[in-house]
């Protein structure tokens, strides 16, 4: 049993986070993957706790510069890497909207399929329990992103059983498209 801010969770039953850890371990073993984001080498957010099985040499800890991080991820992908680019909260991914929409999502069209970079984006809807992060830390913009993105596939991870399957599918996807995975912070402690 683990005590978290006054609440008790039975860690044995929590599969959601474990499936994320399993998925990251799988991706971390691939030669061409690289993990990029803030708080991926150091504690500070929930996503960090899912990267414990990924060796530090596969991680690029970056400053807070979300849009630059997305552009860097695309640049890494153009030269053969499969970046797993991590945004701890959906609210923070908004700051990277420019590079995501104007570049990553348009590159196949702009390059007439010469470039088919694969970037795997992870973000999470901020949890509301036991602490509510408020309106700037808990938003779910899934529908907005689904409407705007035409090439990047948007996948909401609702159930533990979907997680490993979808990350594995994204990595092996032969159409070489990029993916945006939307996790739910509350599921880390409830599913």
């Amino acid at each position, binding site marked *: 049993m683990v005590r978290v801010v006054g609440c008790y969770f039975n860690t044995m039953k929590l599969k959601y986070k474990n499936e994320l850890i399993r998925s990251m371990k799988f991706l971390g073993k691939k030669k061409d993957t690289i993990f990029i984001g803030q708080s991926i080498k150091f504690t500070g957010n929930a996503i960090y706790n899912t990267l414990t099985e990924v060796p530090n040499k596969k991680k690029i800890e970056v400053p807070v510069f979300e849009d630059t*991080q997305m552009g*860097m991820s*695309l*640049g890494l992908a*153009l030269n053969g890497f499969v970046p797993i680019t991590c945004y701890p909260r959906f609210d923070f991914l908004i700051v990277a909207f420019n590079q995501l929409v104007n570049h990553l999502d348009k590159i196949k069209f702009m390059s007439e399929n010469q470039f088919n970079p694969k970037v795997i984006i992870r973000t999470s809807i901020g949890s509301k329990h036991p602490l509510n992060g408020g309106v700037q830390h808990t938003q779910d913009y899934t529908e907005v992103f689904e409407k705007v993105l035409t090439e990047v596939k948007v996948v909401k991870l609702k159930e533990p059983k979907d997680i490993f399957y979808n990350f594995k599918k994204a990595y092996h996807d032969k159409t070489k498209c990029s993916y945006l995975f939307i996790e739910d912070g509350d599921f880390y402690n409830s599913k």
Partner: protein
Amino acid sequence: MKKQDLINFELDIKKIYESGKIKAPIHLSGNNEDQLLKIFKKVNNKNDWVLSTWRNHYHALLKGIPANWLKKQIIKGRSMGIINKKHKFYSSAIVGGIIPIALGLAKSIKLKKEKSKVWVFIGDMTFETGIFHECYKYSKNHNLPIKFVVEDNGLSTNTPTNETWIKKSKIPKGVYYYKYKRKYPHHGTGGWVLF
């Protein structure tokens, strides 16, 4: 590619544009041939990457992209975003958009221990943006193989950079910089075209 070849290419595009055959904006280069010819002597056309802006024709030609291929792309309306994988050339019509991408490319080169470099061509207004300064700082502190070139024509579309920023920032160490006077308008050729 010689100075007159560059000039003639743009004159050819100008003529085609004025005939109404290009149904998209074009941003012609001019008056900066000498500076670019000098800079491109340092570019390894086989291995290096070049990232450019909407005004990219000269950069593309000097990177070794065949003039005929480039011309076809421009006629297809793709002038503002010329991309050629074989020649490691990427351009974008979003101000500052290429800089983070260049940073990622440079990081990948370092991780893979490759010998190549990334060359990034930006205008003087883009140079003043926050995105340039954070990327420059990151690249310098991480010793990434990237070279920035600031092409200062004093204008962003038709807005004088000095009018908006009052004064320009100091060019940081290791950044190439040159000044020139724009030969053509921001886009188009300055004449009325009937499509």
